[in-house]
């Protein structure tokens, strides 16, 4: 029993060590060799454009549902006019970035984990390595940078679409015009609401790309490993999103909301 626990801890420690080495190799490869622009652009398209519909629909529904759920409490408090502000601040600061990141963890981290895992199983990564090419530069650097760029963009787009969802819900019960609604939304926003939210989505994107690449790149050789890599990438990336969010909220509170 104790031996199993020790083995488990040793494996965990080894995994952490491997992740640190992988991170260092990723970082070194950003600055050495030629950057794979065409692959980076392709990944931005795959990751960003192809996730836009999913993020848009989810954010729209979240905005709509949030207003429907909030309205009775806000009306009871007699602060109906505060509804656009409440929605905007909660959506921009927290709900939008986290929902977008969780959606991306499910879609992108799993897809990267499965893709690289399957490349590992079919010896494509080994083939790149023995040919003298740099698989880290081609496969890993491009994907991690693409997620770090695209997840914040998706979060911003998701925020805007979520506010539209909120408008639809609000417009069913209250007669408010779109320009007035958005005027209220924007007027309620501070720089300190927007900037930390965008910055944390960069870290969310990085975590999604990094975990997906690490799990896929280090999967075992066997078809079962592809599924394990994809599954493990989603679980680990989702966990990291909440950890990063908790840290980001603490830092933001200290810096902006004293």
């Amino acid at each position, binding site marked *: 029993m104790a031996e199993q626990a020790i083995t488990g801890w040793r494996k965990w420690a080894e995994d952490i060590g491997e992740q640190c080495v992988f991170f260092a190799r990723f970082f070194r490869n950003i600055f050495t060799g*030629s950057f794979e622009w065409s692959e980076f652009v392709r990944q931005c398209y795959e990751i960003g454009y192809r996730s836009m519909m999913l993020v848009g629909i989810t954010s729209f529904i979240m905005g709509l549902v949030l207003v429907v759920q909030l309205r009775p409490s806000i009306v009871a408090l007699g602060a109906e006019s505060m509804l656009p502000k409440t929605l905007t601040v909660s959506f921009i600061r927290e709900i939008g970035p986290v929902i977008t990141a969780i959606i991306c963890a499910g879609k992108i981290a799993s897809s990267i984990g499965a893709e690289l895992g399957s*490349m590992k199983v*079919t*010896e*494509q990564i*080994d*083939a*790149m*390595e*023995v*040919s*003298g*090419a*740099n698989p880290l530069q*081609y496969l890993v650097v491009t994907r991690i940078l693409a997620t770090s760029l695209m997840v914040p963009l998706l979060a911003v787009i998701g925020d805007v679409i979520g506010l539209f969802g909120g408008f639809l819900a609000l417009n069913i019960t209250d007669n408010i015009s779109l320009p007035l609604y958005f005027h209220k939304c924007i007027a309620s926003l501070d720089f300190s609401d927007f900037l930390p939210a965008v910055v944390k989505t960069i870290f969310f994107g990085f975590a999604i790309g990094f975990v997906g690449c690490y799990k896929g790149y280090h999967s075992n050789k066997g078809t079962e490993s592809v599924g394990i890599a994809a599954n493990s990438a989603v679980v680990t990336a989702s966990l990291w999103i909440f950890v990063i969010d908790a840290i980001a909220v603490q830092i933001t509170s200290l810096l902006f909301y004293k």
Partner: protein
Amino acid sequence: MKATNGNISPKKPASTQKDEVVIHAKGIKVGFVDNEVLKNITFDLKRGENMVVLGKSGSGKSVTIQCIVGLLKPDAGDLTVFGQNVAEMNDDELKQLRMKIGFLFQSGALYDSMTVRENLEFPLTRVLKLNDQQEIDKRVEEVLDGVGLLDAIDKLPSDLSGGMRKRVGLARTLIVKPEIMLYDEPTTGLDPITSREISELILNMQKKYKTSSIIITHDMECARITADRIVVMDDGEYIAEGSYKELQKSDNKMVRSFFNETT
């Protein structure tokens, strides 16, 4: 020989001596956890020679060639390629070495998100750093024509049969004009006719590009067609060595079991 940006120096052997040893392995040992996969492997590969390594599955054949390209490091012994010790090489030296070695994987290992053309362009643009599209196209078409698959240039690997994938895989390794070719079970999973075609293609390519080759296989027909010399491996050790005809007369039980299958 180093390739320069956009300008490739012709690949001529450093020395044209036929007896020049390009790979020298002495006392190689490799183990995984409690399992010793290679036990005291010693061999030389001479320039222009085709050496076939025969052995049962799991006897350590593939591990040998993975050590040669630095995918695995031996636990003990000396392994030198072109006079350089592989285990002591840094990343840049290993990259330079790998540019001189072609490795054909058992599955072909084609990049499945790329077309055949893109698969072949990949080592030219990423490894040799060629920029001239005309030169790239010329090389791609020439090597694809050599393996008889010029028609498949714009197809994806998923549209190709197993034999075609191996041909494209072979073309992709030959396009950088390697001095050494390592084949990991090139005919496994193919029908006898396609296996023979692949074996003959290996021989033709070896003559055309004047490469030294190690061919890992348990296909006796492939060994007969391609081998200048055969070594037989069992349980991580070399147990016999000689030409196809010499080994046919061997008294060793394991060697005989290989040859009896074909007679």
